[in-house]
C-alpha cells in the first residue's frame, strides 16, 4: 500500500513568533493580516476561546482585552525563512516531496517500515531543529492523508501522529462518521452545503455515497474525492511547483488615498514587486492588469472599482516597461473625488524567458541592457535587503504604506535585528 504523509505545522505563524519570543509560550496569541486587519493565525489558547479564523480584529478587541490576547502584525519575512528551513529538513525523510503551502508538505513514505515511530522522529527532529511543532497524518493517498492529519491535530490521544494505514476499515468508518463532510480536502463551504442538502453530512456518508450520482451532481473532481476516501490514489504528488500563470501583487493601504500622486507610488511599488517575482521564476509577461478600489465596507462613501488590462507591445520582465504601462492604465481609470482603499497589479499571459517570440523590430542590445540592469537591481536587493534599490516613482516617504503596528524583528534575515541574549 502507498503511504503518503502530510506534515502540517501547528499554528505556523504563532509558532514562528514563539521561537524567538519564548515568553509567548502558553499565552493566547494571534497574528493579524496585512494592515492588522484580520486574524490569520491563532494559538491553541485563542482557538479554545472560540475565536474563529479570519475574523476582523476590531470585532474581537473586547474579548481580546478581557483574556489578554497578544496580537502581532504578520512578519512574513520571518515565516518564509522558517518555512524554508522546515521544508528542507522534511526533504531528508523522503525522496518525493510536494510542498503544498507555506506550512504543509506531502511526503511519499511508501516502502518505509514502522511508519508511526518514523513520523514521530520527523516530528521531534523538526521541533528540536527549528522549534516548530508539527502534526503528521499518514494514509494511502493525499485526500486521506489530509484527513488523517486533521485527526492527528484534533484528537489528543494520537500524540500528533495518525496513521490510517495501520487502522482497520471498521475503526476508520467509526472515525469518519464523527468528521463533518466539510473537513474533507477539496469540498469547501459550498460543496459541504450542497452535500448536506443531499443528506450527506459526515465523511463516512460521503465515502459510501454512489460515485455515479456524485459525478452527475458535482463532476469528476468530487468523484475523485470519493474514490480517494475509499483508498484509491487519484491525485499524484506534484514535486515541481508549476510556474505561476499569473502574478498578483495587491495590498490595502495603511490610510485611504485620494490623490493621483499617492496612487501612482502605490501602483509603481506593487508593479516593481510583481516584476521581481516574475524575474525570479524566469518568465516574461505579455499583459498587465491594474485595479483600484474604494472601501466596499464603508456604506456612506461613494463606490468606484475600476480595472484595466493593458497588452504589452513585447513580452517583458523589465520593471520600467511594466511600470510605464501600469501608469498609463492608472491615468485612464483614475477619477478624483473618491477615497481609495486598495489597489492591485496582475501580470498575465506569462511565458518562460526562453520562449520569447522573435519580432521584426526587436532590439537585442536593448534587451541585454535591460536584463543586466534588472539582474543587478535584484542582486543588490537580495544582498542588501529588499527596497535598497527602487524606482524613485515608488516614493520615499510612502504615506500610504501598510500599517504593521506590532511586528516582531526579522531575527533570521537582518543583522541588526538579531535576538539579544544576556
Amino acid at each position, binding site marked *: 500500500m502507498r503511504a503518503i504523509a502530510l506534515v502540517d505545522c501547528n499554528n505556523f505563524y504563532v509558532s514562528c513568533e514563539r521561537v524567538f519570543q*519564548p515568553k509567548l509560550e502558553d499565552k493566547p496569541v494571534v497574528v493579524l493580516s496585512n494592515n492588522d486587519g484580520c486574524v490569520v493565525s491563532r494559538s491553541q489558547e485563542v482557538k479554545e476561546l472560540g475565536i474563529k479564523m479570519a475574523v476582523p480584529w476590531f470585532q474581537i478587541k473586547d474579548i481580546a482585552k478581557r483574556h489578554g490576547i497578544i496580537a502581532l502584525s504578520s512578519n512574513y519575512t520571518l515565516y518564509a525563512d522558517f518555512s524554508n528551513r522546515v521544508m*528542507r529538513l522534511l526533504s531528508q525523510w523522503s525522496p518525493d516531496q510536494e510542498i503544498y503551502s507555506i506550512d504543509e508538505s506531502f511526503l511519499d513514505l511508501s516502502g518505509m517500515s514502522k511508519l508511526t515511530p518514523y513520523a514521530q522522529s520527523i516530528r521531534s527532529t523538526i521541533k528540536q*531543529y*527549528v522549534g516548530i511543532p508539527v502534526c503528521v497524518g499518514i494514509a494511502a493517498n493525499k485526500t486521506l492523508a489530509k484527513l488523517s492529519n486533521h485527526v492527528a491535530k484534533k484528537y489528543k490521544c494520537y500524540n500528533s501522529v495518525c496513521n490510517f494505514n495501520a487502522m482497520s476499515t471498521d475503526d476508520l468508518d467509526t472515525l469518519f462518521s464523527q468528521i463533518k463532510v466539510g473537513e474533507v480536502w477539496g469540498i469547501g463551504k459550498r460543496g459541504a452545503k450542497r452535500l448536506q442538502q443531499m443528506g450527506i453530512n459526515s465523511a463516512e456518508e460521503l465515502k459510501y455515497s454512489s460515485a455515479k450520482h456524485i459525478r452527475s451532481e458535482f463532476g469528476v473532481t468530487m468523484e475523485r474525492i470519493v474514490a480517494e476516501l475509499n483508498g484509491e490514489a487519484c491525485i499524484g504528488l506534484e514535486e515541481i511547483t508549476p510556474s505561476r500563470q499569473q502574478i498578483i501583487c495587491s495590498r490595502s493601504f495603511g490610510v485611504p488615498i485620494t490623490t493621483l500622486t499617492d496612487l501612482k507610488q502605490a501602483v509603481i511599488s506593487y508593479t516593481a514587486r510583481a516584476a521581481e517575482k516574475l524575474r525570479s521564476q524566469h518568465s516574461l509577461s505579455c499583459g498587465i492588469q491594474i485595479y483600484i478600489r474604494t472601501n466596499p465596507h464603508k456604506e456612506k462613501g461613494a463606490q468606484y472599482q475600476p480595472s484595466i488590462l493593458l497588452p504589452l507591445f513585447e513580452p517583458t520582465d523589465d520593471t520600467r516597461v511594466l511600470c510605464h504601462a501600469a501608469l498609463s492604465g492608472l491615468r485612464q481609470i483614475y477619477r478624483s473625488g473618491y477615497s481609495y482603499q486598495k489597489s492591485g497589479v496582475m501580470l498575465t499571459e506569462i511565458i518562460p524567458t526562453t520562449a520569447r517570440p522573435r519580432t521584426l523590430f526587436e532590439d537585442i542590445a536593448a534587451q541585454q541592457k535591460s536584463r543586466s540592469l534588472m539582474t543587478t537591481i535584484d542582486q543588490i536587493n537580495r544582498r542588501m535587503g529588499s527596497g535598497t534599490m527602487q524606482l524613485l516613482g515608488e516614493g520615499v516617504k510612502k504615506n500610504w504604506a501598510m500599517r504593521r503596528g506590532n511586528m516582531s524583528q526579522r531575527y*533570521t534575515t537582518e543583522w541588526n535585528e538579531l*535576538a*539579544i*541574549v*544576556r
Partner: protein
Amino acid sequence: MISMQTTTARPKRLERQARRATHGLLSLTHPNKELFHRKRALLRGAVPAGFPSPADDYVEQRINLDEHLIQHRESTFFMRVAGDSMRGLGIFDEDLLVVDRALTAVHGCVVIAVLDGEFTVKQLLHTPSGKVLRAAHPNYLDQHIKPEQDFSIWGVVSWNIHKI
C-alpha cells in the same frame, strides 16, 4: 582551441547581420545610425583569442566562512550578546553567537537557555543536584534550576564571533 574556431566564424556572421541591418528594411524605413555604429563597433571590438589562462584547470571555490561555521544549515541561528557575564570564556558584549539547535547540550557546553521566558547565554553543568547555569564572571552567581522553574535549552553555542 574552441575559442579559435569561434573567432573565425563570428565576424562573418556579424558582418552579414550588420549588412542586413544597415541595408535592410529597417534602414529603409528608419535609417538607424545608432544600430549601424553599434554593429561596426562589434566588428571592431575585442574577440576572445590568445592563450587561455594556465590556471583555468585549477580554479576552485574560494574559502567560505559559512561552511566552516555552520554544520547544520537549517538549525543554525545567529544571536547578539548583551553584557559581560560570559567574558571569562571569551564572549563579550555585542559579540555574535552561532547557535546550533541540532547539537545535544552536554555537560560543560555553552548554551542559549530560556529561563522564565527570557534568553540567556551561560555554561550548562549537569550536577548531582540538577542543572546549573554558570556565568564566566566573578560577579555572577551560579543559577541552580529548580523543577518548578520554566526552563529549557534553546540551542547550543557552537562559535563566538568577536570583532578585534
